[in-house]
Structures are given as structure tokens and as C-alpha cells.
């Protein structure tokens, strides 16, 4: 399933990350996943939240640079080999992955993973055909 991810520019300075999460908390936004890619000077924070539009507005108003990016969420059995099975499907179809991180799911016995593939729609399709990705939107967003 294609879902909305928030990408946030974070300067490498004390308190920057905390102030972003605080803004989200103040706006009653629940974070289900968070990953930070960092360099010496700055980081790109990627978050999956229950209310992306609210989060986007709140962060922008707080003067944070944020972008909404589409990514693929994949659900798989929470067993050994679960992650590699899903990733194999993507690689067998010759799709490059830019980044990947784990996500908290709400369904018992299932694990969630977020993938940023080079070809978004095709990645979603091949995963779907292979039996991955049957996620209910409620698992991610609060609707």
C-alpha cells in the first residue's frame, strides 16, 4: 500500500529533533515510525504519522521545512525471514530501494516495513501480487 511519509529537514543541533516531536505531540499526532538519515551537518527525519496533513501543517507553521513523500508500506508475518521475503520480491523485479525502515503495526502477528523504491507503483504492484501489502488504512492512519 502506498502511504504518506513526512520528510523533515533537521539541522544537527541540540534540541532540534525534540522540538519537532514536541510540535507533533502538541497537535495530537501519533508517530508510528521514525527514521533519521544523518550527515555531519544535517539530518533528514522520516516519519509515518496517523494524521499526515495535520502534521504537515503544524510543522510548516512552526517554521520547519517538511515535504510529503509517497512510500510503500508492506505488511508481513512477524517471523524469521519475513523481511527478506518481501525484499526479495522487490529485488527479483529489478527495483532499486533507496531506503527502508521498520514500522509499528497494529495487527497481531504482523510486522510493518516502509520501503522507498525507485519505482513506487511497480514496487507496490509486485508486492501485492506476491501476497504482501494487504494493509488496512486504519493500521496506519487514524481515519
Amino acid at each position, binding site marked *: 500500500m502506498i502511504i504518506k511519509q513526512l*520528510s523533515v*529537514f533537521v*539541522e544537527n*543541533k541540540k534540541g532540534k529533533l525534540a522540538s519537532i516531536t514536541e510540535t507533533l505531540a502538541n497537535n495530537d499526532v501519533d508517530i508510528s515510525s521514525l527514521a533519521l538519515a544523518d550527515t555531519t*551537518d*544535517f539530518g*533528514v527525519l522520516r516519519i509515518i504519522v496517523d494524521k499526515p496533513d495535520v502534521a504537515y501543517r503544524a510543522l510548516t507553521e512552526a517554521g*520547519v*521545512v517538511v515535504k510529503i513523500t509517497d512510500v510503500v508500506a508492506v505488511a508481513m508475518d512477524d517471523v524469521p525471514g519475513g523481511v527478506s521475503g518481501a525484499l526479495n520480491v522487490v529485488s527479483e523485479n529489478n527495483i532499486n530501494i*533507496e531506503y527502508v525502515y521498520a514500522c509499528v503495526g497494529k495487527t497481531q502477528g504482523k510486522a510493518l516495513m516502509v520501503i522507498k523504491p525507485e519505482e513506487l507503483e511497480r514496487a507496490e504492484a509486485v508486492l501485492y501480487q506476491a501476497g504482501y501489502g494487504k494493509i488496512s488504512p486504519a493500521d496506519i492512519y487514524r481515519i
Partner: protein
Amino acid sequence: MILNPQMECMPREEIKKLQSERLVWQVKRMYEKVECFRNRMDEKGLKPEDIHGVEDLSKLPFSYKSDLRDYYPYGLFAEPLSDIVRVHASSGTTGKRIVVGYTENDLKIWAECFARMLAAFDVTKEDIIQVSYGYGLFTGGLGAHGGGEYMGCTVIPMSSGNTQLQIQTMVDFGATVLCCTPSYALYLGEEVEKMGVKDQLKLKVGIFGAEPWTESMRKEIEAKLGLKACDIYGLSEILGPGVSGECEYQEGMHVWEDHFIPEIIDPDTGEVLPEGSTGELVFTTITKEGFPLIRYRTRDICSLNYEPCKCGRTHVRMRKPTGRSDDMLIIRGVNVFPSQVEEVLLKVSGDSITPNYQIVVDRVNNNDTFDVNVEMSEKLFADDVKSVERVEGMITEKLRSALGIGAKVHLVNPNTIKRSEGKAKRVIDNRKLV
């Protein structure tokens, strides 16, 4: 030693007379040959005949750095290119460079001006000069080179960079005089210490200029390189290095008044200030043929001292400039205007407004640091680290090609650059040089 006692020790009354003759000559020819000057004179209702001598100097219109940009490249030259034997260029206030030209005679005068300073420190034809200023469009390298040749010294046209090789050359070739920027001299000194070759150096004099430096730097350079460090002043628009320089007493820099008339003005009103006041330094070139300027606003803040000097030279001494009346920065010897940085950022941002930015300059271990903080925007930002790094790299690259020196670029969060009265403070210069 005084190289040209007839000129350098000329009684002040005679200097005035000589300056008057030369000024009248210069005004007349420039009125004929330089459109910009003629227009300025006409605007003021002035004719060359109204100028009888130095007493009329303050009637003349000013000229500005922006003139060099507006008449780029050759519009201010007073001689045809067939008589111009060399050009030099330096950075202007915006992306455009400024160009200056020299006739054969101009180059001779330049060489002599530089050589007067060498002579003051007893440099003779027996000496070996290592010129470690950059060669090329910058006037430093070839200016010092010409001065050295004028004295009949052996000149090593080393240019800047490659520190190990610089020191090896000094040792192997037995250099006795070093010409470079003071910060580079200090860096060389530190490397000499590390290499443990100080006792193999034969240096006795160093001619350092092109950037601000302090008395404590002077002492450090002298201790590290075992030489006498002398201060020289110049700017491409007027000549290059050698407009003024210290004599053996090192109590200010003698301005070679047979070629340049200095004035100190109030930068706001343009009024000439009483003798001894601190204000903006203005120069009139009275012998320059190729690229003459009348009352050129240097934007350097300093004062002039007309008291007789112990050395016997009668030419006025200027104090080391203590600042600028515009926002120009001198970073590692290179002139940098915030407007140049702004122009680069505007291009990169792909937006109609410049991202907020701030220039931070400091001096760490005697080397200038140059940081440019740029506020991140949605336009510049992308989801992946690579693209953001690419933006950073692109700004760095473009700044380097626009300014000629490297800056460290940092992307920062929006609204984090401090604003005062709604306007961001563009430059923070933490160097303490006075």
C-alpha cells in the same frame, strides 16, 4: 637606503607644486579621453581649466568601484588598447570582475613604487626574492615580481600554494626576501617549525600585504621566520601593491605622493576632513596613463600623518586601515562582498527571493575561516540526503567560482538566522584585527 631621494625626500612645498602640475595634466587628458569622468565634470559644471592645482582637488567629482563595473571592461581606460601592455582584474561588488590596465610607463612606475619599499629595508641586487603572492589576474604576484626585478634582485616567481615546496625552495635557492600575505607567512612559519629547517633559512625581510593583520601577528611571523616583517598597502584600482609601504622606522606607510594624492573624507558627506582625522581614504592617480582615477573612494578607513618621518622621506604616512566604509570583507587576502554571495544563492535557490543567509568569518590558528549559513526552504529540500548534499555542494562550488575562495556552506533550519528589526544580520566577523 632611499631609492629615489630626489622624489622621496622632496620638500613638501615642492611636492605640492609637482602634484599640482601633474593633477592639471591628468584632469585635462582624462576630460578628453574618459567619458565617465567628462560626464561627472559636466554635471558639476566643471571644466579642466577650473583646476589649477591641488588646492582645487576637492572640487573634483569622486569615482567609485561601481564605475569599474558600469564601464566594464575597458570603458575607463584613458589609452587605446594598443598602448596597454597588461591588464589585471579583481572581484567587483557583484558577479562581474573589475579590470584595470597598464601602459609600459605605468608598469615602470609600479615597479619603482614597490622597489622603494625594498630599498627602505636594504634589499639590493644581491638579494633573492621569493614571490609567494598568487600570480595571475591578482596584482600581488606580478606587482612584487616587477618591484624585485626593478631592484635587480633575483626573483623566484613561486606564486601561492604548495607549502612544502615553498619552504624547500626558500632553503635550496637561499631566498633572502619573502613576499606574500601575512596569514600565509605565518602558516609558512608554522610549517618551517614543524620541518625544523629554520636554521637553514636565509630570510631577512618579508613584505606582507593584501589583507589586514595585527602587530602581534607581525611579531609571530618575525619570530617564526627570523626576518623583519614589513607592511605594504595597495589596491588594483590605484596600482596594486606599492601604493604605500613602510620605511625602516615602521611608523606608518609612506604614500608615494609623486604618483598618488591621498585625501581623508567623511564617507557620509564626502567632505574633506582636517589633517589627522580618521575617515575614508581617497586616491587620485596623477601619473597613471592607462587607468587613471580621480578621487577614487577606496572605502578603507584610516588616517594620514603629515609629520616629518625620521627616515628623511617627506611623503605622508597612512596608518593601517582599521575598517571599511562599505560591507566588503577581506578573507584570506581576497575581497568578498556579501552581494556576491547573495547573487549565487539567488541563482541556486531557483526562487525569486534569496534564501536567508549569514556569513560568519573568523580567524582560527591565524587562518581565516569563511562559513556561509543558508536557511533551508521547501524548494531546496528533498526527501533524500543525497539531494540535500548536492544542494550544499552546488552552493559551495558556485561560491568558489564566483569569489575565488572556498566557503564552508551549512544548511540551517528556517528562521534560525537572527533578525534585527526585520532584517537579518548578514555578516558576523569575529576576527579581532585592530
